[in-house]
């Protein structure tokens, strides 16, 4: 793999990781479509709570923490790839470095 390809791959990875993380975190903290898709969740209970209430808080907070930690690890790796592939690389312009 050439350095240009490595940079291109790192670029795509950064955009993809950010977009996916954004969407996943947004859905986890806004799981209201679940209420409309599965209205019966309100009738079930988990640890004494209505299932939708319990799931909302658990997914939006307790599950969010490890998911965010995983994102941090992945994004650090991507940042490292970006740094490694681009350090010392010439600018991708007709004149190279200005």
């Amino acid at each position, binding site marked *: 793999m050439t350095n240009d390809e490595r*940079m291109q791959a790192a*670029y795509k990875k*950064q955009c993809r990781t*950010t977009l996916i*993380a*954004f969407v996943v*975190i*947004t859905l*986890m*903290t*806004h*799981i*209201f*479509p679940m*209420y*409309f898709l599965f*209205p019966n969740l*309100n009738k079930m*209970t988990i*640890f*004494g*709570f*209505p299932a*939708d*209430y*319990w799931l*909302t*808080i658990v997914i*939006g*907070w*307790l599950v*969010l*923490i490890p998911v*965010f*930690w995983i*994102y*941090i690890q992945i*994004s*650090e790796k991507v*940042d490292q790839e*970006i*740094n490694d592939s*681009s*350090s*010392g*690389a*010439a*600018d*991708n*312009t007709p004149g190279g470095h*200005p």
Partner: protein
Amino acid sequence: MSRLLALIALFLPALALAQTAEPKYYVFEPSSAVSTLGILYTLLMMGSFLYVGWMSKRRVTSSDDYFAAGRSFGGVSNGLAMSSNYMSLATFLGFTALLWKMQYYVVALVLSFTGGFVLISIALAPALRRWGKYTSMQFIGERFGQTAKVVAVICMIFLAQLYLIGQMKGVGNVFQVMFHWDYTTGLVVGGLVVTAYVTIGGMYGLSYNQTLQAIIMLIALYVPAVIILLKLGAGPASFFPPFGYGELVPQMNEAMASYFNPFLTVNGTVPMSFKFYTGVFFSIACGTMGLPHIAMRYFTAPSIRDAKMSTLWGTVFVGLVFFTTFAIGFAAKLYTVNELNAQGLQIQPKEADLLIVVMSQALTPGWIAAMPVAGALAAGFSTIAGLLMVIGTGLGSDIYSTINPSAADQSKVKMGYIFTALGGLATIGLALNPPDFLLTSVIWAFVVAASTFTPVLILGIWWKGANKLGAIAGLVVGGVLSGILFFGKGKMFGFTLIDAGPVVHLVTGIFTMSAAWFIIVVVSLLTGGEKNEKILREIDRIHGWQNYDPKRYSGNTFALATAAFALVLMIWSAMPDPTYAKKPEAPAATAPAPVPAADTATKAATEATEAMKTATDMAADTATKAATETTEAVKAAADTAAGTATKAVTEATEAVKAATNTAAAPAAAPALVAEGQTPPAQPASGQQ
């Protein structure tokens, strides 16, 4: 007026059955132990804050120290500081009151707060931190030019003041109610203390104090919550309050069936729609992303990784406080329904703000009951301090360096001192006579942040095509539209643009943020996009690149696709919500009330009478404000009455259906409600 008369006519039979006794309201009076210990805790706390601020002054030798705490604040301590910066007096006291009134809807709001907090560190914070300045406004200035920076600073000052006046007023009110101090004295003392320690210690003083305040808040909330839940019979789970009240849920379901219903809000009288929940994301989560004082904490971290880890810790602490507040809110609702309502007492909205203290005083020893007072003030101080710091930095660094580009570092620090102090004094002055719209001003701040800063920051970081004209147009359109629609409750120049029911403020966020986004993309594309290579190179650098490639972050497809989506959202948000579509007056006025519903109808009528009486009193008190406000009050009473009436009729219909064992599908509840709002058939028996 004719609608009101129709309602009165409807209630006449029920009124005849109802008791006409004056409603009794619960009046909170702090015990001497709570008051004395509260003063003691508060004085100790304020002394500590001033001491920490004074000690921090020694570390301030440059503008980096004053405005960004020397970029040395990471990990757990920054996480604690982030969480206390985010959680305000409104969080500490207001969530309990909101739960008491809105129930499940607050869960959506709070989760959205948490989500926004994390989304900043994914989409914005790493790039802003790499840019290496102190505020979002500086980024906007360097990315889009000085005019955009000035517009951004104006937006920031307005947002900060909306936030600050509410917090300052809250501090004054806590002193007034808890310690019987005059409101002005409490406001001036509290305001001066916080202004002094922020001005003296700069970002260092602010950061250390916010860390300390987060610890105080956690203790002040956790200890009373555990005891309250234990006393109410929640068992061993009480020791983890966020999930400690499962055993009490059946009691709540019996006392108030709508508490855990995600499709109803406002005491079970208002149906929730998908659009309402969508509005939560655009107003609250996206608003959080744009708040300058939240983004500012990322600039204090030594590295990108530290900034992200701080967010992770912040999420832990924010969740602990938010969901412990839920536990207390739950307990307060249960206590209100089972104890106070049973004694014939009702809670007024102003007392609802103090429910956490009410509960603590009723169920915990005095030395613990005084803790929430200290916790609430710590929460208020931390947010006020964060906002004052952003004002000081915005004017002392951003604007001053624009006016005087060759200013020495020390003179920027001096300007920081001056403008932070002036910001504090101005806010105290404004809070002496706070405006009427305070209750919704914080939500408005979120909507404006979502409609101004958020689209400009996201597009400025992730799309090289965004340019100066697009950013300025987006900031102006987003700011002006959100202002007009918020204050006009969805109306613009007399025309109803957003018609989405009682939480219209949040739904306007969908429209205004989408409009700002759409405008930035369209104007930028029409004006040729960003051409300045220096800026384009900077965009690569803030994403971690060591070299430059003009093709990166420059795809117009992404921008056009999001703009098209924004346009769809604008249209959707402007369309009437079917849940609230106006319906013709229903024949239910003549429907006989079945026997099982008689009690409920009587209760509904009593509540309606009380609501109308309250509205009349309000109108009388504010006679000088004349017809407009009076009409609003009567309309509110009519809405409340109508909601209750519909509920009663719905319950009646349910009862008849059950009795006759009909296999027919549930009939729609009679549309008698003002505004044509028809709650689904869902009984709610709790009183407030």
